[in-house]
């Protein structure tokens, strides 16, 4: 979009068109920024309507908040990393070692974008729960007393679920980028004696960096704000900021606290996002 702007920059005729931005901007301002401003305002106002920063500071120091903050960051960073890895591996195979039906499979993976996220958790309980297919199967086969696989109600369960739900967001742009990779480069590299792994590392990946960054940033935003999965797994140690907002606002009727956390959550999303873009930019995008 910056490119487009530059391309058209020379047309500096003072076009009346500059005002065309007003309608969509106004719509967004009304439907999004106005409520957002109210949330921010509420974060600094107590129930009686007085300005109040003390509550903000108190929340910042509360243990439940700090725990949730750490959980949110851990989970989103781990899940984003997972999405990048899974997306990359699947994308490489789909694009460069295709098999009959790989197109359909790619499409099927796309539909995971449409699933309400908590459903994956539901499915995971059936699969990996202590009485799920995997554990029940293992216990039956090896006549074990205790379920051998136990990660579902931990951070890792959440991360795995988020990887399932969000790796399509990495896969999509990656497949697009892979289709643009100059096949000549791959062939030139293999003629020069490079084996597949080296080609992936040195030829394909550098070309896919922008797509990885785009997909990764999307994942980061979505995982920081993920709600359904965490709500449904509902294990101790995986309370994240969005879940905290939910429970503060809904169950505990502490709307100001919910707003404070929301403000911090937004700042965190944008901050992590900015950091990621910055780091990725350094890596050469």
């Amino acid at each position: 979009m910056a490119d487009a702007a530059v391309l058209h920059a020379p047309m500096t005729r003072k076009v009346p068109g500059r005002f065309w931005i007003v309608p969509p901007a106004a719509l967004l301002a009304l439907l999004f920024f106005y409520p957002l401003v109210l949330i921010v305002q509420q974060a600094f106002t107590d129930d009686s309507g007085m300005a109040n920063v003390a509550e903000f500071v108190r929340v910042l120091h509360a243990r439940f908040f700090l725990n949730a903050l750490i959980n949110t960051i851990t989970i989103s960073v781990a899940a984003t990393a997972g999405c990048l890895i899974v997306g990359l591996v699947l994308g490489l195979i789909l694009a460069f070692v295709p098999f009959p039906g790989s197109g359909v499979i790619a499409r099927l993976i796309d539909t995971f974008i449409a699933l309400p996220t908590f459903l994956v958790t539901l499915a995971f309980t059936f699969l990996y729960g202590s009485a799920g297919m995997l554990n029940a199967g293992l216990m039956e086969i090896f006549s074990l007393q205790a379920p051998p696989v136990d990660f579902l109600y931990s951070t890792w369960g959440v991360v795995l679920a988020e990887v399932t739900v969000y790796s399509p967001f990495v896969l999509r742009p990656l497949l697009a980028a892979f289709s643009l990779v100059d096949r000549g480069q791959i062939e030139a590299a293999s003629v020069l004696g490079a084996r597949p792994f080296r080609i992936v590392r040195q030829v394909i990946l550098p070309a896919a960096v922008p797509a990885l960054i785009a997909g990764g940033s999307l994942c980061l935003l979505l995982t920081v704000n993920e709600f359904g999965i965490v709500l449904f797994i509902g294990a101790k140690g995986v309370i994240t900021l969005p879940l905290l907002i939910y429970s503060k606002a809904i169950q505990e009727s502490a709307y100001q606290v919910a707003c404070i956390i929301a403000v911090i959550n937004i700042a965190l999303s944008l901050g992590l996002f900015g950091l990621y873009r910055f780091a990725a930019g350094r890596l050469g995008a």
Partner: protein
Amino acid sequence: MLVWSRPGRILIWAVFALLFGVLFLAPLAVILLSSLADQWNGVLPSGLTTEHYSDVVQGAAWKAVKASLVTGFLASALALVSGTWAALALRIQDATLARVLGVLFFIPSAVPSVSVGLGLLVAFSHPPLLLNGTIAIVMVAHFVLISAFTFGNVSAGLARLSPDFEQVASSLGARPAYRLWHVTLPLLTPYLVAAFGLSFALSMGELGATVMVYPPGWVTLPVSIFSLTDRGDVFAGAALTMVLVAVTLILLLGLERVAGRQTRS
């Protein structure tokens, strides 16, 4: 083309099958299986039944499908119009302003859905704009949550569009509006369709905000699925999920055909 030997390829495919199986196929299959399960307390269900589907269909399933589809369509359409409009209008701003506005249009994707729901409820339960208790507020919530994705997709498409087309069009005497309608938008169609597909899919799965704002008689699929599973009625929830998956898949495939036809012509 990367792996030359047949055993190597088979090994790679095995890795793929494993990843795909564990991450995607297994969950989907398990939901499908449980939607058909009679009781499921061992490794496998004790029996199969279509009872959950008939329950769901007798219940409010079709109303939920309709609510989800209408919400998805309207919210995505609004997001598409506003996102496309914004992306187009940003091109004629100067670079700095365009960058700043570009970030602003992106911010909605950084806000947790629960906050969006509550924020809207607070903001629009007051005059002059009373939206609570109406279907509109659901659309608005979905619109807010997907607008950034639509905007991003369309902007990306626009950046990829060669300026030649538009320049040739103006040199032939096409005024901006004519050019927009007959050249720019048709050429953007694949991106518009893709953007619509993504936002539609996101909207179909939205729960966090919808739960806070939905009006009577407008229970979307995720909300009904959640209330079923939340009361422990997992199998019916699974059946309804399969309905959601099927509806979305059909729609996405349909859109893809439209897009395919567009790019072919």
